[in-house]
Structure formats: C-alpha cells, structure tokens
C-alpha cells in the first residue's frame, strides 16, 4: 500500500499575525514540512526613489523616515551622510556626537523590537514583547524631547542636526542609561537560558559565512554567521573611530545566534553612548554655510551606515539641480531576504516563522 501525499499551497500574509507588516509568502507544504516558498513583495510600495527625484535634498529627509519606520534616525543618518559626501559638507563635532548617540539609541530600540517580536513569533504570550516595548518607550520619549516626534523623526539635516539637545534630554538619557543594562539582563534571564527557546532556535536556519557574503546579507545576519564585518569599524563614519567598542559575532549562524548578537550589540551600544556622553563638548550643531535649498555639484556618491538591520546605503546621482537625479536606496531588510528560501526549505512551519522573525525586516524598507 502506498500513501499518496498532496502538496498544499498556503498563503502566509499579507495579513498574518507574524508577517511583520504586509509581507506575503506563498508556501508549499507537504504536511508540516516546507517544500517551496516564494516571497511576494510590493504591498507597501510607495515609490520612494521616484518621489525623491522631485524633492529638494532637505525634503527627502522626511521620506527616509518612512523607510525603516522603527529606526528612522539611522535612515536619516545614512541619507545625510550621502548628501554630505555628495556636496562635501563639513559636520560640526558636537553634531557628530549627537548623531552617534541618537543612532545608537535607535539601534537599541530597533533591536528591542526585533527581539520582542522574535519571541512573539516563538509563541511567548506577549511577555518578552512587553518588556522590550517598555524600554523602547523610554527611548521614544527621549526622541520626543529631542525633536518633538516619536517615530518619524526627521532630526538630521545635511550639515548637522535640526537643533541642539534640550537640557531635559541629558537627564532623561542619564536615567535611561542607569537602568537599561539591568533591563537587558532581566530580558536575557527570561529568554537566553530558556529550554524551549533553545530547542526552538538552536541549529535552526543555519547560514554559512560563504552563503551570507554571497547573498549580500548585512548587519546582525552577517555577524551571526561568524563574519566580522561592521561598517562602524570597517569604514568609520562620524566619530566612531574615536570610540572603543567590540563587534560581537555568532558561533554557528543559527537563529539563536542572531538573537544573541542583537542582545550583545545593545550592550555595545550602551558602551558607545556612555563614551559619547563623556566626550561631547558644547559647540555648534549645524554647519551654517549649508543653504536650505542645496544645489549639489554634478557628481555621484554612495554612502552607507551600519543601521540596526544592516548596511543602509544611499546612492545619489546629481545633475547639478536642487533635487537628486537618481536616489537609489540599498535597503538592508530587502537584501536580507535573499536567502529566505535557503533558510526555509525543508523546515517545519514553526521554524519558518522563527527564521523569518530572526531576519528582522521592516516592510517600509523592503518595498520602499
């Protein structure tokens, strides 16, 4: 007697509780095992690159907020670095320090989101997620003090930042830095040694170093697979070359390593912020020579920063006008999806969700 199997095609998304937005995967299942998977993109496509061709250089800052909307500071930073490279603009020292502080705060916020939602995908009933959100909320409060917005910040400008930090900001930062280390430890004590988390995430979705480099992955995905590569060290921008921090890497490249890398990076970010706070000195925060309507020389520039999700790059081409001729965004979330098939095929449905959660994508950036 033979048992005939019929393959089932199931749509995961665009409306699905753990699709992190409107991502859609067309999954072919043999029982619980995944035979084939086809990602479907584009449900949040807004044509950011085309819109950028019609706006002035300063106006585009607001468009970048809406890419990776859980880490808009990093997007701002990547974009303004590209403009500064294109037009050769100097940034005052204080502005650089402020940029590094807010970018690292944003990294902590983004990694908290990633960790919380990974655990949510694992089926933990909201508890780790809420712990993460509690801390993220404090960061958002700080951003509110800083620039009045919480999510879409638009804090940076070519040549500096929008305004100097208010005095309350430093108080808030102090109290936040006093507790965040303990809070991360608390979160880790809930997750890191947990038998169920370990059995669900260890040796799941292993990516080899050759594969991740070949697949153009970046950020924690790259570093979890033993590739020690971080733009903050490899190609230091702002003031990162003056700061002392480590680049944590994973041991095997599985889902657990991708979680652990994020936790370790949060701790490194804390180190960086503490150093910046002690090094920052009063001074101007904006290059006054930069006009409101920038007319860039006929040139092109590619600048990238190490965002929370990976290498976020902007490739700007200028024809001498007041808006870029072409603005290409190298979106890390989008690129990190290129190995989704390799990770998913042959695993179970539960693993697919966990693997997908560990990539940590934001749809605003994937579809742009």
């Amino acid at each position, binding site marked *: 007697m033979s048992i005939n199997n019929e393959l089932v095609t199931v749509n995961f998304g665009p409306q699905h509780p753990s699709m992190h937005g409107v991502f859609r995967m067309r999954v072919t299942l043999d029982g619980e095992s995944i035979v084939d998977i086809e990602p479907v*993109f*584009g449900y949040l*496509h807004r*044509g950011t*690159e*085309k819109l950028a061709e019609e706006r002035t250089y300063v106006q585009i800052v607001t468009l970048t907020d809406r890419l990776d909307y859980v880490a808009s500071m990093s997007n701002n930073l990547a974009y303004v670095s590209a403009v500064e490279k294109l037009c050769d603009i100097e940034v005052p020292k204080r502005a650089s320090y402020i940029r590094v502080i807010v970018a690292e705060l944003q990294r902590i916020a983004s990694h908290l989101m990633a960790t919380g939602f990974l655990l949510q995908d694992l089926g933990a009933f909201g508890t780790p997620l809420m712990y993460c959100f509690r801390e993220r909320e404090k960061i958002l409060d700080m951003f509110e003090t800083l620039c009045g917005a919480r999510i879409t910040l638009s804090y940076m400008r070519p040549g500096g930042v929008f305004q100097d930090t208010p005095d309350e900001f430093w108080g808030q930062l102090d109290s936040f830095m006093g507790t965040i280390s303990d809070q991360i430890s608390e979160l880790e004590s809930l997750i890191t040694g947990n038998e169920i988390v370990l059995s669900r995430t260890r040796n799941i979705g292993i990516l080899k170093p050759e*594969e991740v*480099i*070949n*697949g*153009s*992955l970046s950020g924690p995905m790259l570093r979890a697979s033993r*590739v020690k*590569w971080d733009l903050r060290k*490899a*190609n*230091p921008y702002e003031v990162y070359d003056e700061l002392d921090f480590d680049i944590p890497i994973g041991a095997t490249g599985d889902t657990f390593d991708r979680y652990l890398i994020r936790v370790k990076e949060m701790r490194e970010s804390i180190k960086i912020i503490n150093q910046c706070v002690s090094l920052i000195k009063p001074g101007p925060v904006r290059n006054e020579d930069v006009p409101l309507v920038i007319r860039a020389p006929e040139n092109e520039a*590619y600048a*990238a920063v190490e965002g929370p999700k990976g*290498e976020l*790059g902007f*490739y700007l*081409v200028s024809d001498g006008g007041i808006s870029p*001729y*072409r603005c*290409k965004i*190298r979106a890390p979330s*989008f*690129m990190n*999806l*290129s*190995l989704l098939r390799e990770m998913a095929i042959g695993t179970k449905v539960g693993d697919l969700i966990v693997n997908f959660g560990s990539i940590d994508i934001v749809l605003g950036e994937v*579809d*742009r």
Partner: protein
Amino acid sequence: MTKIADNQIVIKLLPKDLSEQTYISDKHLYVKPEFIYELCKELQNNPETQYNYLKSISAVDYIEYFEIVYHLDSLINNSSLVLKTKLFGRSKLSVKSVTSLWKGAELQEREIWDLMGIYFEDHPNMKRILLWEGFEGHPLRKDFIK
C-alpha cells in the same frame, strides 16, 4: 577605512581579453555590457581583487543611455569598487545576470527589471517584484508618466 580601488590598477590586474573591454571615463570604470558577467566573475575570483560582496546594483536613466552601477566590496581586503556599464537605447535592453555569482543580486535585478525595464538574461526568476504582473511601463524611467 575602506580603500577605494584605483581603477587603473584594477584594469592592469585583469587578463588581456577582459581589460580590452574596459575603459575609464570620468574617473569611473566602465565595461562593455556584453562582458559584465565575465568581468564580475574575474573580479570575484582574482586573488588580487577578491570582490566577494555585492553591495548594490543600481540603474540610472540618462535619457540617451542607461547606466547600471555595481557597487562591489571586498570584505577580505576591505576595499570597494564601482563598476559601471552603459546600455544605449530605450527598449529591449538586456544584460547578463550576475545572480549565479552573487545570490544577493537576485532581488535587485528583479527590482531593476521592474522599475527600469532592463532585462537580465539567465536570471532564475525574472518577474516583476514590487509592481504586479501586467503593470504597464517602468516607473523609474525619466519618461514615465502615470
């Protein structure tokens, strides 16, 4: 710091049949579109260059021609290279895909086909990615009117 590769040196490192197909124009390294795959393969495997990481592929519409820009990175030597190729004409543009060299090119090439209308030969899944099948036109082109 990431070293920005000197285009002259890169050309010298290439074998003769490939270096004849490359030229430097306006400080950028250009290659004839028919040889992009061979050149990328050489740059990836040559022990002197080892550009093992594809940062991004972009396409730029200059009205009379299209430019495809490859941002390559060597994680081993920490150096970067910008490689360009020009495609003349407005329709039936195609160039050989580098997906078999870098898996990371797959999604980006699909995106360029979708938004710029440049077809990549030998791509495993050359379909529209962000827009739906049946969408007319390629919106990132300068002559696209909604």
